[in-house]
């Protein structure tokens, strides 16, 4: 049966993790349809149509969907759901907000943050901050699933010549008037987005201050890396909340993860232990981070980081 992927987007394009969700969806059913709802989201619909494996794009133009309010979007997804065996979303802040509301309205359970599709009704998902893996089976008629993007390879994007999926315009359900969007305070950064960066440099409490993150910024810029942090660094106000890597923050799986001044609480490890290569820089040789690191250096990060920045080639 067909699978519906609900795509988050910025009107110009769908988020990059939609390509990962499409791959996961393709393992659950045959035809993958992508829902792109918003106001003036035609370009985003085109970007979804260009993703390999997408059979159809449903584009909905309705001002009510401009800001991703779950109260307004959920009824739209619920109306479409009976035509599909699965409703799939990436487990990001949009998917985590919307998908459970959809599931409850459908009176079905939710499979949260699946990391593997065993069969169309069976999934593997991490529990206890990834310290255990549960294999769960759903008997519900429609399966509402959020998927962890880093565990599914991104479906190829269509080039200029690739055949695009058909885009079908459908009507919206209007707004419910329960909630309204006021504004956003988004972090501005030229660096790669944390969850899709090939290299991530993260700082912890050991950085000592927000100002000291400058030495990590210099290293990140030299490597073309994204910048992350542990919960301790975010709670201390060194960096904004969207830098947080961990159980309840972002989950990253880059080729290279450099943990600087991070002790390695299990909650932090939950967000980065799928990284291909992990480097730990910490003055405490007993720090748990060294138990998961491929390469560790014990020493003063304020000496080591600038030295490392000087030693690596500019990307």
């Amino acid at each position, binding site marked *: 049966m067909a699978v519906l992927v609900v795509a988050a987007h910025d009107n110009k394009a769908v988020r990059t993790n939609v390509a990962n969700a499409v791959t996961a969806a393709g393992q659950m059913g045959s035809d993958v349809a992508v829902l792109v709802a918003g106001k003036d989201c035609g370009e985003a619909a085109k970007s979804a149509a260009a993703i390999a494996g997408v059979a159809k794009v449903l584009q909905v133009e309705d001002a009510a969907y401009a800001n991703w309010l779950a109260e307004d979007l959920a009824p739209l997804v619920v109306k479409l759901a009976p035509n599909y065996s699965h409703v799939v979303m990436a487990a990001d802040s949009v998917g985590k907000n919307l998908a459970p509301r959809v599931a409850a309205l459908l009176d079905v*359970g939710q499979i949260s943050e699946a990391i593997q599709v065993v069969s169309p009704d069976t999934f593997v998902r991490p529990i206890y901050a990834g310290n*255990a893996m549960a294999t769960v089976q759903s008997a519900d008629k429609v399966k509402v699933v959020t998927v962890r993007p880093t565990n599914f390879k991104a479906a190829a994007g269509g080039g200029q010549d690739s055949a695009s999926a058909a885009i079908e315009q459908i009507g919206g359900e209007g707004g419910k008037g329960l909630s309204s969007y006021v504004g956003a305070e988004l972090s501005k950064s030229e660096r790669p987005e944390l969850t899709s960066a090939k290299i991530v440099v993260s700082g912890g409490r050991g950085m000592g201050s927000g100002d000291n993150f400058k030495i990590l910024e210099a290293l990140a810029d030299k490597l073309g890396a994204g910048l992350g942090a542990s919960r301790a660094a975010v709670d201390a106000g060194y960096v904004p909340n969207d830098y947080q890597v961990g159980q309840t923050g972002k989950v990253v799986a880059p080729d*290279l993860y450099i943990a600087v001044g991070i002790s390695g609480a299990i909650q932090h490890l939950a967000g980065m232990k799928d990284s291909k290569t992990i480097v730990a820089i910490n003055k405490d040789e007993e720090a748990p981070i060294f138990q998961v690191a491929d390469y*560790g250096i014990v020493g003063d990060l304020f000496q080591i980081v600038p030295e490392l920045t000087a030693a690596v080639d500019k990307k």
Partner: protein
Amino acid sequence: MKVLVAVKRVIDYNVKIRVKADKTGVETANVKMSMNPFDEIAVEEAIRMREKGAATEVIAFSAGPAQCQETIRTALAMGADRGILVQTDAELQPLAVAKLLKAAVDKEQPGLVIVGKQAIDDDSNATGQMLAALLGWSQGTFANKLTVADGSIEVKREVDGGLENIKLKMPAVITTDLRLNEPRYASLPNIMKAKKKPIETLAPDALGVDVAPRLKVLKVEEPPKRKAGVKVKTVAELVDKLKNEAGVI
């Protein structure tokens, strides 16, 4: 305005969990249990609202085995006024808990429900959103700051790109994120006082809620272990390994 908070009894966040040898779940016998940390934040926020005069009463709700009384007592010791326990030994999944919470909301008619965004055991991040759906209420998830105004509440939310502000019509369901507040410790006199606060115990049947799990857990396993690597002495050695051994820079 009454505020209802939901508190879950979970394995303490400091405990290193062990998967049972028969793969049916995680070992909970003789393991320290505590209130889910996100729920402590929910309790704290509700108490602050009452202290500021925005709320009149704080009700702590839990669902699960008899020992959840202790979790409710912790909320009462922090300052909640009374408790409701839906007692059952059945496995409870988020949809079932949301339905039990809805029954409690129908009875108590709070103006606001505050729950943790996620429980640190099953990591589902679903109950609050599900409750809002069942009630037809607005939802303010991953809250970083709450401002109650006349008949509405402004919620600053932690989202992927930073922070977002939304305005919700009340009644509403809020789910807490880490930076909403720092929960207080219960003082000894307040722990003593909490022993006298009332807890009402109900059965799921009495509320007319079917709590049967929707997801069948086939097995629970250890994740693949990551092996500790090597310690290097110098930055030059590190760069060499990253280039020539790992091939990542």
